[in-house]
């Protein structure tokens, strides 16, 4: 029996064609350790599992601070480096303001819903 505690699952990944559709399990993407693990799981999709098209669905996310933005930018850059693409969808209005204020909505592809997100690749 392993002495390691079970690692909490933070992402749900569903494959739709060659697109990895990712849902966040947590409603709040906040504390540093949590963000680090979410980042690691996202980067693994690209670095180890070879995914090139990633659609992040924010429908479950109610709160997110600037600490999480860094992981999204790194994921965007990783995908760009391998000719892949990152798309974000279903972002709540208040969280969308986080992207607008930081002007990240100009470098990231953001769509209103999952269907339009799938079509953005």
């Amino acid at each position: 029996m392993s002495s390691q505690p079970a690692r909490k699952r933070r992402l749900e990944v569903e494959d739709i064609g060659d697109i990895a559709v990712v849902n966040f399990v947590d409603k709040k993407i906040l504390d540093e350790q949590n963000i680090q693990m979410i980042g690691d799981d996202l980067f693994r999709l690209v670095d180890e599992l070879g995914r090139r098209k990633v659609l992040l669905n924010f429908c479950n996310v109610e709160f997110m601070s600037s600490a999480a933005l860094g992981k999204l930018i790194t994921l965007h850059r990783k995908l760009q480096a391998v000719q892949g693409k990152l798309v974000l969808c279903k972002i709540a209005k208040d969280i969308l303001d986080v992207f607008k204020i930081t002007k990240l909505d100009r470098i990231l592809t953001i769509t209103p819903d999952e269907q339009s997100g799938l079509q953005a690749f």
Partner: protein
Amino acid sequence: MSSMCDNPIVAELSIPSDLAEARRIQDLIEEALQASAYSEHDIFSIKLALEEALVNAIKHGNQMDRDKRVTVCYQITPQRFEVRITDEGEGFNPDDVPDPTAIENIERPCGRGLLLIRGFMTNVVYHGKGNSVSMTKIRDGVGNSDAHTSD
């Protein structure tokens, strides 16, 4: 802070440099805002600004030193939320922080906290050497003509 009326909620708290303590304060303030019937949008804005400012105070100000404390003074009235957060760090000049929206910085993974605080709050003032910040949020539907935070 400006004079208050309509039975303001007033509190002064001191916490060690611990992010879990910061979350506790945020929850406390969120409950008070809900009890005062602030909108979800206002509560989101205030929570985000508190998160960014408290993380700055604990991580960058006090360098996570649990022997150093962060004080949080806040007032909630039907019209506005005001808070002052002070750490025991060296302070900083907010004008020295690179603009994270500039082309050369836009893809940097950090440095957006101050921008978000300014974006979500009505008024933000740094005091003294920069280790103390006052933030005001005028409630939705209330005119901004009195959005003044004294120094």
